[in-house]
């Protein structure tokens, strides 16, 4: 695929997205004119660009779309649900067409083509009924020009004279593609090539363009649209456009202004059918007559005409010029702020920065050992700089989550239609930033959750009304930062998770024993189990019972976690917590036995000494608060003597505080996260590994799962003890 095409696909997709979000907005605010113009502009840009790269199947399709949008813009048709639906489907189709182009196929495959044909038929329905009406308005517009005098040439088509400049070909433009694009606006009735500027073969420069064209075009597009065809070469060509039913004098003026011989050009015009022979003669004759006397009298009407002419031209030209200028400015501003960089290059940079951090740590360590204060000082400056580089490099990969969220506008709309429910999507925190590699992987799990909420969560409108809720259900997508992680919530105000049903289902599927006593939260958590689904009917949206455990697995794969909270009758909240980045974090290094562990610094609140404590109770009094703690030594079964002084690192996670008992506190440490081999994918409590300055490997603690693990362990202990107690009392 050549560069031009790949740029087209990239930019085309952006435009497509703009178009889609515009269409979604259109449904909410049908009268927003700026928005309609924006949609039109996006469609037009795609069409224009596809013409330039000569991708005709896209161009032809977009032409039809544009026609409908044009009528919408002119207020000839009105926004309806069907229309926006149709246009959105057109967007989807266009996206398929781009896939085809990206795959470098010459023609779309059969099924895509059929879909396209069907859409084109539907689109045509919106343009056909209007043909008569628009012709009427066109004539009306012409009427006052007509009144200003002068014979009218009787054609219903535009006449375009274009002389391409000599530098066209050198500038990488092909006159042919402009003509092709022009043809997409309407039908070219006649086309005459003017090769008069062509010098003799000896003087001809094969890289220069000498050609001009006289074109008769039948179209419903405006003059500005036709001018826009030649936007790319505006500065390098002479362009004259005469509207249908222009006055004879304008043709004559055109003939006079163009460099070619008058008579010859006249003949050309006759040949291409713009003028008839008699009209030409009449025109030229009257002009000569007017000129001969030399006084101002006969010129007067001409002047008037020119003025009118100017007025007509003026408005359109100025409008086009202004809009073009605005576009150029806008584009320049965006270009100045953004540089496109391949994601691989960024990843490579981050990897290198990671290595730099590790190498820096080792240099630091050696400097400290050498006890040379100057060396220590210089390495500490170095490591501060490395830290800054690390932060900026990571910042490069941060993107706002908004783009991922806005995709759901469309999903919610479509799914709500499909389900026959009325559902709004509310997005907050779209500007929250997180690592690009995380954003890419979060889309699918989110999709599952949102669909689930809509399918299983939100009740049908009638049920909602009977329960005293507003008819329209709401699904919320929230994002915010919380102690070194990003939290994404999917909230719905639907029926909540039905506990009895879930429990019954779990018993049926053998996930739990009927005699087992489960807390409410435990019952809700059953939905994450593999092969669990409560929908009585399998819909094509969700309910295949693969959803939730896949969601959980995907999120855990990102070192994240997911939870669900639900109030029956009032809705449920799914909370996803993800690390901000998968590359480098600030860590807090602690030692247990001979090993070192890293706790993410964002979670650490404080460190305190573990005072002599009654050994079998694992909680302490932290300024009046009860603080439960985990003994890493016991948990990891580290052998050897307890050191004289043990420390507690107080961590906070998801609003909960807990203590982690360690031997030594080793201080802050820039931690480059190295993923552990997939052998360890079932390992809970360890989030990854990193390399210390000494070259040793240290493990990164996953505080949340570590604490959860402990909770689970204790619960089981209790249950076992209870069972023993019960059996003894029975005996």
């Amino acid at each position, binding site marked *: 695929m050549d560069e031009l095409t790949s740029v087209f696909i990239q930019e085309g997709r952006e435009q497509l997205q703009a178009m889609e979000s515009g269409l979604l907005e259109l449904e909410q605010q049908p009268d927003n004119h700026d928005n309609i113009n924006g949609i039109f502009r996006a469609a037009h840009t795609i069409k224009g660009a596809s013409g330039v790269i000569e991708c005709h199947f896209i161009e032809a399709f977009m032409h039809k779309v544009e026609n409908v949008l044009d009528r919408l813009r002119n207020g000839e048709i009105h926004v309806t649900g069907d229309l926006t639906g149709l246009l959105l489907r057109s967007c989807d189709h266009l996206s398929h067409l781009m896939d085809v182009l990206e795959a470098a196929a010459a023609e779309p495959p059969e099924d895509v083509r059929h879909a396209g044909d069907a859409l084109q038929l539907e689109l045509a329905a919106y343009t056909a009924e209007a043909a008569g009406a628009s012709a009427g308005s066109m004539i009306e517009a012409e009427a006052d020009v007509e009144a200003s005098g002068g014979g009218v040439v009787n054609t219903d088509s535009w006449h375009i004279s274009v002389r391409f400049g000599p530098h066209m070909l050198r500038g990488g433009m092909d006159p042919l593609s402009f003509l092709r694009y022009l043809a997409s606006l309407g039908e070219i009735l006649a086309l005459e090539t003017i090769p008069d500027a062509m010098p003799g073969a000896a003087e001809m420069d094969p890289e220069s363009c000498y050609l001009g064209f006289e074109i008769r075009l039948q179209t419903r597009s405006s003059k500005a649209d036709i001018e826009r065809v030649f936007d790319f070469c505006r500065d390098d060509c002479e362009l004259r456009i005469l509207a249908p039913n222009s006055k004879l004098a304008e043709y004559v003026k055109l003939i006079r202004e163009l460099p070619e011989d008058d008579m010859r050009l006249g003949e050309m015009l006759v040949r291409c059918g713009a003028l008839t022979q008699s009209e030409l003669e009449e025109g030229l004759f009257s002009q000569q007559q007017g000129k001969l006397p030399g006084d101002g009298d006969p010129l007067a009407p001409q002047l008037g005409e020119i003025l009118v002419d100017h007025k007509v031209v003026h408005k359109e030209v100025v409008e086009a010029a202004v809009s073009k200028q605005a576009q150029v400015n806008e584009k320049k501003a965006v270009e100045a702020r953004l540089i496109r960089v391949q994601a691989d290059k960024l990843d490579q940079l981050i990897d290198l920065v990671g290595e730099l951090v590790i190498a820096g740590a080792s240099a630091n360590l050696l400097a400290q050992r050498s006890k040379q204060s100057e060396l220590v000082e210089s390495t500490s400056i170095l490591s501060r700089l490395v830290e800054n580089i690390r932060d900026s490099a990571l910042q490069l990969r941060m993107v706002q989550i908004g783009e991922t969220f806005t995709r759901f506008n469309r999903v919610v709309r479509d799914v709500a239609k499909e389900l026959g429910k009325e559902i709004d999507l509310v997005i907050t925190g779209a500007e929250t930033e997180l690592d690009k590699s995380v954003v890419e992987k979060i889309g699918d799990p989110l999709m599952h959750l949102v669909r689930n909420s809509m399918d299983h969560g939100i009740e049908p409108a009638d049920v909602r009304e009977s329960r005293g809720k507003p008819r329209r259900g709401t699904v919320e997508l929230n994002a915010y930062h919380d102690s070194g992680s990003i939290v994404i919530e999917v909230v719905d105000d639907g029926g909540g998770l039905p506990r009895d049903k879930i429990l019954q289902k779990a018993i049926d599927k053998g996930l739990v024993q009927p005699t087992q006593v489960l807390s409410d939260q435990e019952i809700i958590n059953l939905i994450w189990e593999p092969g669990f689904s409560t929908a009585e009917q399998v819909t094509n949206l969700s309910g295949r019972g693969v959803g939730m455990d896949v969601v959980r697995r995907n999120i855990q794969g990102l070192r994240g976690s997911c939870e669900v909270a639900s109030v029956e009758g009032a809705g449920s909240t799914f909370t996803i917590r993800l690390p901000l980045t998968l590359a480098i974090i600030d860590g807090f290094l602690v030692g247990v036995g001979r090993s070192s562990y890293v706790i993410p610094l964002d979670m650490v609140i404080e460190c305190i000494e573990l005072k002599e404590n009654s050994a079998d109770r694992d909680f302490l009094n932290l300024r009046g608060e009860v603080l439960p703690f985990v003994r890493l030594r016991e*948990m990891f079964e580290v052998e050897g003597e307890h050191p004289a002084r043990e420390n507690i690192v107080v961590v906070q996670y998801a609003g909960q505080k807990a203590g982690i008992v360690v031997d030594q506190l080793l201080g802050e440490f820039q931690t480059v996260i190295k993923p552990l*081999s*997939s052998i360890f994918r*079932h390992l809970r409590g360890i989030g990854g590994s990193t390399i210390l300055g000494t*070259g040793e490997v240290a*493990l990164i603690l996953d505080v949340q799962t570590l604490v959860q693990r402990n909770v689970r362990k204790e619960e089981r202990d209790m249950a076992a003890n209870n069972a023993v107690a019960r059996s003894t009392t029975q005996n």
Partner: protein
Amino acid sequence: MGQIVQSPGGSRAPATVAAVDSTPQQYLTFTLGGEMFAVAILNVKEIIEFGTVTEIPMMPGFIRGVINLRGAVVPVIDLSCRFGGKSTEVARRTCIVIVELEQGDQKHDIGVMVDAVSEVLEIARSEIEPPPSFGAKIRTDFISGMGKVNGKFVIILDVARVLSVEEIAMLTQASDSANVEAA
């Protein structure tokens, strides 16, 4: 009886023949608990001295830990433990053989702890016998064949089986949850 013993061996042999052609292949031999083992040299990436291994808590015994291999974190398996024996004592000649495996589109580097690395040998196909159905004291599916070297048998390991990422991951999970339940 003879037939029963032979049939699994006979069915295995063609499979290995299909995998490698008849030209002699090179094998790296090493000792483990006094016994000689071999692995196909194409799987071996490098051999390093036994250095600092970071232990991973809550893991079964045959996972010795992880090492820093020029910036990459590589797990190390104690082979003797994996075969159901005692864990390997670290001695002067203890080495880690880094084995590269391709499993499910992904490449994995795994370190294997051995007592000592001996030499690289060429063993002709005709010198390789099918594994015995019992008596080797290790799982038969771990053995790809028995090579005859100087009149002695060398156990040629099927590294893809011995170091199966899937299986090890399953075992770690099992041991982890057993830990929680048992405690």
